[in-house]
């Protein structure tokens, strides 16, 4: 059945493509709501200071200013995606803790007037010493950023007997790896329009990945009943995890709207995005691995220090997740994991595609390459020897179902020309690195569930309205769901109207993160469409005088299997149902089948399926300048079943390029808490001339639980890239770089030290 599909596996152009290509798609900055005011935020110029006084009186008097709010207005509110960890006030109350921390805000008739007024808000500070390095922050005499101390959490987990296993190892490898703060660099800066009308109805137009959970967060923080809160996700210029929580600007806009009764728009400038937007958490990873001389991994002892930044966001959950990933890819029976998540006076991190996996995979996969060299083994053989396979349990109890890892490794290695290019003299080299990542979300953040609810109705002409609480953030989920519905119902993709993103008109779904939407929402769509198909087929069996079991719905008609002339169009069936008062509606609510709630040891819940992949990269290193040219990039990904090859390639190519940036050039640079590269000129993300063609190879392991066997691909695209590049650099010129980004300067320094 799967091979005979009309919509599944086809290169269907995305259903919102024309709107985007003609400039008619409306993003947040394109919206004009009647009566809208423009908000601007006053931000702290100091990384750490007490606030002695905030005087907005002069600003309030400026012509065209409609409201000014300060910490007095938002007093007591604390924000964090994990509510009980919330320690970020929307506007500072007694202290500011990083340069850019929000202090006050103005709503005015224009952005110009708002900016003018900001200059008139008087703030008295008492500067405090700042601490910018997590190791410094952990010292007993370090200045305290928060009352409870500078360590947000200490995590300690242990499985099996690590000390004994290390003792039994023939070799123990101990290495330190360091990763940097990577920015999402969404082309569209973050923003919102918030309107609290005088009836007490709250509408928030916003770029969010999680409309329904976000609605609940708003309702909780603002103590409002949910039926009074509406979240409208608009077209988004990128997400990548950067819009996976509540940002202070939304609460600030709320209070401005509350004071004025009017909609208030706040959009960050790109400068604000660079200096105050969420980042990938920088980590220092000490990894000790014990192996037998035949390559069997016995134990892994990992210590992580996460630079949390000034406030809590996803840092704790990400760091917990890193712990599980210590035994993800390669089967390791004894694992110990210790981690500290530490506050510093810098911008705080958040979720970013990969959720901690890029950091730990950089460490693990670099070390595997080093281990293989010491043991005299080809790294590919070392990997295959220790790989998790389908049906296995990791030592932390995670079950691997479908697994295409071996195929990914074999295919990537062949496509890059491993045999011809590995360990050859000269300045070129090849390296590989693999990944294992959640392929369908995880029971982690929003209670003991990982669900999606979908409503579908078939109109009386056979076309479809599909309503889901998912979020289309550019990855193409709307189109993929339309393909699944089209396949199930035998209609065309263009017959389907996909409605997502508005909490008023859509049912519950946890949103776009954890690479979950295709798996979870896709299954829900299948269920809902299945209900409709059954009713269609029942009616058609009456119309055709045939048995329902013998009928197929495909290519816009229902026909008898083996006798396609005996058919009736779906439109006719739909009209007949309508005339007979039979409603063609279906509902599918899918919650993933993993049954365990968040593990008390890992803090992580079950993952319904895992995505796998291998990146193979060829580089050429200029020994005089340290520059790295990527000559070839092969990305083999186990996607379960490809629903839309064109969009899947897009995820791999886009993710791969973000991975190359993470590996070679991106990273915020700070000095005493000041961001030194807050623009695209100096924060180096790649332009079109910098990039190689990325070759995608899809491995289809056909997941038993995914819709048509599909599993997620949103995040895996960049998880192993940095390690593959590091391994290729080592193969090329014999230097091992253990800190990201691997700039020419670092490589040149390492080459000189080697001489």
């Amino acid at each position, binding site marked *: 059945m799967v091979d005979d599909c009309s919509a599944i596996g086809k290169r269907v152009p995305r259903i919102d493509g024309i709107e985007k290509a003609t400039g008619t798609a409306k993003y947040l900055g394109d919206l004009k709501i009647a009566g809208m005011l423009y908000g601007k935020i006053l931000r702290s110029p100091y990384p750490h200071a007490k606030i002695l006084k905030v005087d907005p009186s002069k600003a309030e008097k400026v012509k065209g200013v409609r409201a000014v709010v300060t910490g007095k207005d938002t007093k007591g509110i604390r924000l964090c995606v994990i509510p009980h960890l919330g320690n970020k006030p929307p506007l500072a109350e007694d202290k500011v803790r990083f340069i850019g921390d929000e202090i006050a805000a103005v709503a005015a008739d224009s952005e110009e007037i708002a900016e003018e007024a900001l200059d008139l808000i008087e703030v008295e500070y008492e500067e405090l010493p700042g601490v910018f390095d997590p190791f410094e922050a952990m010292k007993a005499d370090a200045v305290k950023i928060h009352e409870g101390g500078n360590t947000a959490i200490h995590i300690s987990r242990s499985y099996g007997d690590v000390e004994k296993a290390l003792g039994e190892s023939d070799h123990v490898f101990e290495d330190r790896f360091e990763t940097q703060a990577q920015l999402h660099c969404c082309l569209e800066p973050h923003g919102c329009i918030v309107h609290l009308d005088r009836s007490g109805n709250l509408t928030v137009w916003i770029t969010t990945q999680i409309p329904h959970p976000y609605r609940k967060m708003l309702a909780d923080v603002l103590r409002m009943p949910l039926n009074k809160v509406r979240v409208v996700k608009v077209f988004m210029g990128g997400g990548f995890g950067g819009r996976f929580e509540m940002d202070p600007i939304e609460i600030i806009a709320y209070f401005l709207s509350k004071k004025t009764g009017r909609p208030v728009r706040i959009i960050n400038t790109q*400068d604000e995005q660079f200096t105050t937007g969420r980042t990938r958490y920088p980590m220092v990873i000490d990894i000790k691995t014990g192996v037998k001389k035949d390559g069997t991994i016995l134990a892994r002892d990992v210590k992580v220090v996460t630079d949390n930044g000034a406030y809590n966001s996803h840092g704790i959950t990400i760091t917990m997740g890193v712990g599980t990933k210590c035994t993800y890819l390669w089967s390791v029976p004894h694992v110990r994991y210790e981690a500290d998540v530490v506050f510093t006076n810098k911008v705080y991190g958040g979720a970013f595609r990969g959720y901690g996996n890029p950091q730990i995979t950089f460490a693990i996969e670099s070390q595997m390459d080093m281990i293989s060299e010491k043991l005299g083994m080809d790294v590919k053989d070392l990997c295959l020897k220790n790989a998790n396979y389908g049906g296995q349990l990791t030592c932390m109890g995670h079950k691997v179902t479908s697994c295409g890892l071996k195929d990914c490794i074999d295919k990537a290695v062949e496509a890059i020309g491993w045999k011809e290019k590995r360990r050859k003299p000269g300045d070129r080299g090849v390296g590989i690195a693999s990944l294992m990542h959640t392929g369908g979300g995880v029971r982690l953040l929003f209670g003991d569930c990982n669900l999606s609810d979908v409503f579908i109705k078939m109109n009386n002409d056979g076309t479809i309205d599909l309503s889901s609480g998912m979020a289309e953030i550019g990855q193409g989920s709307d189109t993929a769901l339309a393909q699944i519905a089209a396949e199930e119902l035998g209609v065309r993709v263009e017959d389907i109207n996909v409605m997502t993103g508005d909490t008023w008109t859509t049912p519950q779904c946890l949103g776009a993160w954890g690479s979950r939407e295709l798996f979870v929402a896709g299954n829900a769509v299948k269920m809902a469409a299945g209900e409709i198909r059954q009713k269609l087929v029942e009616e058609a069996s009456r119309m055709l005088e045939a048995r329902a079991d013998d009928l197929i719905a495909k290519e816009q008609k229902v026909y008898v299997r083996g006798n396609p002339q005996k058919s009736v169009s779906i439109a006719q069936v739909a009209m007949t149902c309508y005339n007979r008062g039979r409603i063609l509606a279906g509902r599918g609510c899918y919650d993933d089948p993993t049954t365990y709630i968040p593990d008390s040891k890992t803090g992580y819940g079950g993952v319904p399926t895992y995505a796998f992949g291998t990146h193979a990269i060829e580089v050429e290193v200029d020994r*005089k*300048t340290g*520059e790295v040219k990527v000559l070839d990039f092969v990305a083999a990904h186990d996607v379960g079943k490809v629903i839309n090859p064109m969009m899947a390639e897009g995820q791999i190519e886009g993710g791969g390029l973000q991975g190359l940036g993470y590996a070679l*050039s991106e990273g915020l*640079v700070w000095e005493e808490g000041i961001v*030194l*590269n807050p623009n695209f*000129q*100096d924060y*180096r993300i*790649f*332009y079109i*001339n*910098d990039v190689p063609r990325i070759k995608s190879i899809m491995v289809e392991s056909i997941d038993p639980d995914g819709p048509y066997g599909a599993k997620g691909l949103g995040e895996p695209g960049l998880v192993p890239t940095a390690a593959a590049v590091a391994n290729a650099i080592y193969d090329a010129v014999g230097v091992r770089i253990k800190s990201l980004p691997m*700039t*020419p*300067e670092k490589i*040149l320094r390492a080459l000189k030290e080697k001489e």
Partner: protein
Amino acid sequence: MKRFELLEPNSIEEACRLLSQYGEEAKVIAGGTALVKLMKKRLVHPSYLVNMKGVKDLGFIREGKDRLTIGALATLREIEKSSLVRQRLQVVAEMVHTIGSVQIRNVGTLAGNLCFADPASDPAPILIALGANLKVVSLEGRRVLPLEEFFTDFYETALSRDEIVEEIQIPFLPRGSEAVYLKHTMRVAFDLAIVGVAVRLDMSSKDGVCMNSKIVLGGVGSTPVRAKKAEGLLKGKVLGDSLIPEVAVVASTEIDPIQDVRASAEYRREMIEVFVERGIKEALDRANGGAS
């Protein structure tokens, strides 16, 4: 941006008068790509902008007996695509191609780039190596000023308050002379140079001796810098394989390079050596009729 008044003179002399009248409060705008960006970031806030684009006949690219003259309003793109520039001073067209992006080059002017005086300006090193001059206009009249004396500090030039650049004069390379510009960046396009090296060799036709040279370094100091000691070592010599690396090492010791978020001083020093060596070899290759 803060409010300002846009003044639209019809002649360059009128523009000078306006600059003199408004003093510190006025700035000249040509293409505007650099200035508008600074104004939006609130780093400069002139109350008056003297808009040169209304002045006619400043967009020329002309050939003289021994040099190219480029008007102050000629855009970088026009220079890049000019068949005159490509034929007579190919190295200038090559260098302009590395600046920014097509959109910026469609609007930005060469004169504007030079007056902005970014330490990493691409035109500056190569034009200095070619011996370029600027003709500038003030209320007192016109004067010609060597480009080598034009840059005084980070973003500062030798222009007096009411002076405006009218044209750039670039001598052609005589027979036997070649020049190259090498730009070291992290990304292929768009980046400002970490180090920009211009090398000009004047070779004797008889015995392959280098009679004279200019080695100009951009992006490493507050202004472009000539590596005069290195130039001295090339003078009168045959440029053999052992001399060139030595000369490059000397060039790298002639300046204490700046340090910034793009690169450390030490790395810049190392790159000066690498690119001076590469630059001399490439210029020599071109002078010997090699592939360019």
